[in-house]
């Protein structure tokens, strides 16, 4: 197992290198020059031309592209992500703040998705074609179909403006305090309703494949309780594809949810990345992209390891 983990960990490097290279090229190919965005309105004429030239040299953008690339890779290897062009601050602490915000939101949304989605999917599968099944799948479909921002504004209006139960927006650094947790409820619920719907539907279809297999029929014939059969024989055997979906879901949540972050004023990595793209803040775009890619890659590894935990037949040697 450890050898497998080590091998997979090594594979992270070329994956991230590919991401870094692609982002490096794409952000520089896009129209718009970050230096020109730095020139304030009060600097005019020949002074602005001179300033552009000076800043281009200062930030090394006048060097050949391959030199800039090699220099950047060498910085990354030393875990130095550089300084933001826009704010002139070191990127790593800022990135960690935004990653922490995304992680907290992702965690709550994910737990909620699982708590809502899997039981709903199980009930739906077990009571297939019943009113309960139809109702649950209708709600699940609604959660998937309603645009996230529409759901967000509706929830804000109901719980923030009408009922005054929860703050419409904001973040106070930590969800692990009562006052801090209030801020994460609405964005997490908004995210969870969509992903829970997806998880519910997937759980249902995955379980339906197992429910009528021979070994389940045998278990019933042996007189085992239905609940026991569903938990030990059906759900457990359905978990492999469900785990895949959960892994992708968590990866997506960790990667930043720009719409939710924008609506709720949640300072996640999605917002950080999109702002940097608009500002052509190359170092921030590169650093944030690496972190998002790393989140996906790590989630993939965790998902693969979880397969082995769920299914003893799977061994990684």
């Amino acid at each position, binding site marked *: 197992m450890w050898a497998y983990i080590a091998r997979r960990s090594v594979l992270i490097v070329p994956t991230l290198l590919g991401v870094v290279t692609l982002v490096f090229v794409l952000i520089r190919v*896009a*129209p*718009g*020059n*970050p230096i*020109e*965005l*730095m*020139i*304030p*309105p*009060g*600097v*005019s*004429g*020949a*002074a*602005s*031309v001179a*300033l*552009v030239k*000076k*800043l281009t040299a*200062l930030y090394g953008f006048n060097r050949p592209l391959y030199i800039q690339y090699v220099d950047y890779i060498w910085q990354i290897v030393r875990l130095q992500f550089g300084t933001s062009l*826009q*704010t*002139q*601050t*070191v990127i790593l602490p*800022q990135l960690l*703040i*935004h990653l922490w*915000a995304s992680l907290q939101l992702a965690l709550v949304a994910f737990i909620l998705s699982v708590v809502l989605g899997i039981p709903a999917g199980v009930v739906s599968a077990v009571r297939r074609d019943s009113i309960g099944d139809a109702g649950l799948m209708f709600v699940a479909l609604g959660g998937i179909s309603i645009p996230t921002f529409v759901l967000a*504004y509706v929830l*804000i*209006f109901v719980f*923030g*403006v009408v009922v*005054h139960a929860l*703050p*419409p*927006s*904001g*973040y*106070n*650094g930590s969800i692990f305090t009562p006052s801090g947790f209030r801020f994460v409820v609405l964005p997490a619920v908004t995210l969870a309703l969509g992903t829970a719907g997806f998880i519910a539907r997937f759980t249902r279809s995955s379980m339906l494949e197992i429910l009528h297999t021979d070994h389940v029929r045998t278990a019933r014939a042996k007189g085992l309780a239905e609940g026991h059969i569903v938990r030990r024989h059906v759900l457990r055997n359905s978990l492999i594809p469900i785990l895949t979906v959960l892994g992708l879901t968590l990866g997506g949540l960790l990667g930043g949810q720009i719409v939710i972050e*924008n*609506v*709720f*004023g*949640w*300072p996640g990595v999605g*917002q*950080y990345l999109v*702002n940097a793209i*608009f*500002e*052509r803040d190359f170092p921030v775009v590169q650093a944030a992209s690496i972190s998002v890619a790393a989140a996906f890659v790590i989630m993939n590894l965790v998902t693969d390891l979880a397969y082995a935990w769920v299914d003893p037949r799977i061994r990684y040697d």
Partner: protein
Amino acid sequence: MVGAVSAAAMLCAAVAFQAGTSAAASSAPLVILQGSSPTSLNPVQEADWLSRESIGYMFDPLIYAGPNDTYLPGLATSWSPSDHGMVWTFQLRKGVKFQDGTPWNAQAAVFNFNLDLAKTSKNYSDFEPWVKSVKATGAYTIQITLGQPYATLLDVLTWSPLFVSPTAYTKEGATGFAQHPVGTGPYTFGSYTPNATLVMNANPNYWGGKPSIPQIKVEIVPSPTTQELDMESGTADVMYNVPPQDVATLKQHGLVVPSTVIADGSMVSFNLQSGPTADPKVRLAIMESLNRNAINQVVFKGYSQVSRAGVPSSSPFYNKSVPQVSFNPTAAGALLNADGWKMGPNGYRVKNGKPLAITILANTNDPWPTISPIFAQELKQVGFQTKIVTQDWATYLNSMRAGDYSISYWDLAAFTLGTWDGMVNMETSNYWNVSQIAHVPSLGKVSAQINAIYAKETGQSNTAQRAATLLQWQKIDYQDQLVGWLFHPDAIFAVSPKFKGYYFNNWDYVFFGKNATVK
């Protein structure tokens, strides 16, 4: 209907910090909403206005901008020019300390000016090329010597420098200081989470008296809709940039929605160098095709003033003798006909086989997405073949400088035309100049005239003289339609009824006296 609230009237309801009265009863914290994070908490580093709106409460300038283009004492109590306005002497306020205990004096003032002039923490200076030197001539006296006439010096001093503690700045450097800013202002730095919150606490030792509002919390909420919901739920107290179409809804929720005319001019920016818009007759035809009064009602719901020569009617530089282009599509069509642009069978005009095709370059910022299709529709009525290109800001600037456009909608924040030389900047190589007026070969002798006017205006501080000089520019501008002036949109705010004792200064951010309260 413009619901303008004069800053002077609101000032009567507020008490400036420097006019001490007894402290008010206890107050809740004040929550101000902003759409984006400040670029930096270090006022020496940051440049954009949005940042100053957020961090300005921690610092003081030498002079405060008062209502009706007046100046109020800040960290300077008096000032006077000499040597034909080339030397300015400032008497500094005594008994003031920075929030870390460092005394405010001439030495501290000179330190701050030198940070700017030496470009220590940023790569440009707010005072170049006009200010030659700043020196201390006494413990509480400084002298600013100009290298060339600078009529707008006092205006700039209302927003720069925002004085930082020399002790803290020297010890921590620019980047470190940005983590723990220290000024003389009514509020001290509390905490900052980028893209989330900036918290500032009342300074008990503030020279103007401890503010009664114990804390200011600037919350970064990018979505204007969420900002409105925050206001309606009562969790926030101040919102900037209220969309005009939402004013009625906010009022229904019991919010106060003041608006004020600020010196912000929006205009049609023409590509004067190439394409159909290099022709002044085409430019005039474009302006005659745009129904500004109707757009004012539809887009701004009446919360704007149709512009005459780029100057709002409240400005001392407003002059009714400068003509205004009227909406007259018939006249526009006749002008184009006379200019050889004949109507083709497909409804578009043609000259020498070439269609009258123009590109409307738009940005994704409001109200451009709304304005551009209206422009396109109105121009189409007169026979223009239009194409709208909408781009994000960085790409847009690229296209502007490359000249990949015929017209663009632009707005320019300025104090008032004539009191800030940045209002209409005439240098082609200015990266922010969208008019590209000067040095344009097609303008011929007009270019030289404009440069001469600009040079004269820069050195004139007398309002009447300035107005006379600028009138010359306004007439040339009208004659050649160098800039297609459109509107002066109101700044519209939403304020919680719990918040009392505030006003919005000329720079359009909320300012309040020490007795202001939130309860």
